């Protein structure tokens, strides 16, 4: 059963991402939305933890990246950028969703 995990809080202010990463399993997808997208910043402490998640597809919502001034050059490698339609696709492709509020 593949899960879609969503994280919407800043990894620098909240333990949501940390908890999520402790519970994801290979084959799952992690989608970063709202302030959760700050985890993709290259050189940031949160990105180290994110990079260590093996076998997990990591995606980030483009509207939230753009609103925060996070362009491709600021992001670590391996992040799939999705739009709202892509968000829906991920929900469809996975069996259920776990929102780490």
């Amino acid at each position: 059963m593949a899960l879609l995990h969503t994280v919407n809080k800043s990894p620098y202010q909240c333990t949501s991402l940390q908890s999520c990463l402790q519970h994801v399993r290979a084959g799952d997808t992690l989608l970063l939305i709202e302030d959760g997208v700050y985890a993709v910043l290259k050189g940031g402490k949160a990105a180290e933890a994110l990079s260590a998640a093996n076998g997990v597809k990591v995606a980030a919502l483009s509207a939230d990246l753009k609103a925060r001034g996070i362009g491709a050059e600021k992001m670590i490698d391996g992040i799939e950028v999705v739009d709202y339609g892509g968000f829906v696709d991920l929900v469809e492709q996975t069996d259920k969703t776990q929102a780490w509020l």
Partner: protein
Amino acid sequence: MSDVKKFLYVNRKAPHGTIYAWESLEVVLIGAAFEQDVALAFVDDGVFQLVKGWDTGELGVKNFQPSFTALGDYDVQKVYVEREALEERGLTEGDLIEMTYEDEDDDWAEKSSIRIVSREEMAAIMADSDVILSF
């Protein structure tokens, strides 16, 4: 002008996830109208408020970043940004918007309002202010 107090607005939240950043800006602009000694501090996730290049179109919310750059016109000349907070987040001064003011003591020369300070210096700035407003 003995009534002038040193106001420090401490910003610790990212810009869009909560209303704090926007509310802080509103209060800063109101406070500036009372001719007090105003300074802004950006620590923790507050530094994200100054990261340039916002495009909020797809979110359907107002892009209030231009208001930061207008603060110089309201005589806000001191914007302290904590170096450690930037570094932890993989950011440098080059990632930040430009904020300037015109220095009346130097023939109205345009100068940067942003001052990158260490955590220790930030603590001293907090201790040195008369009033602290937290967002």
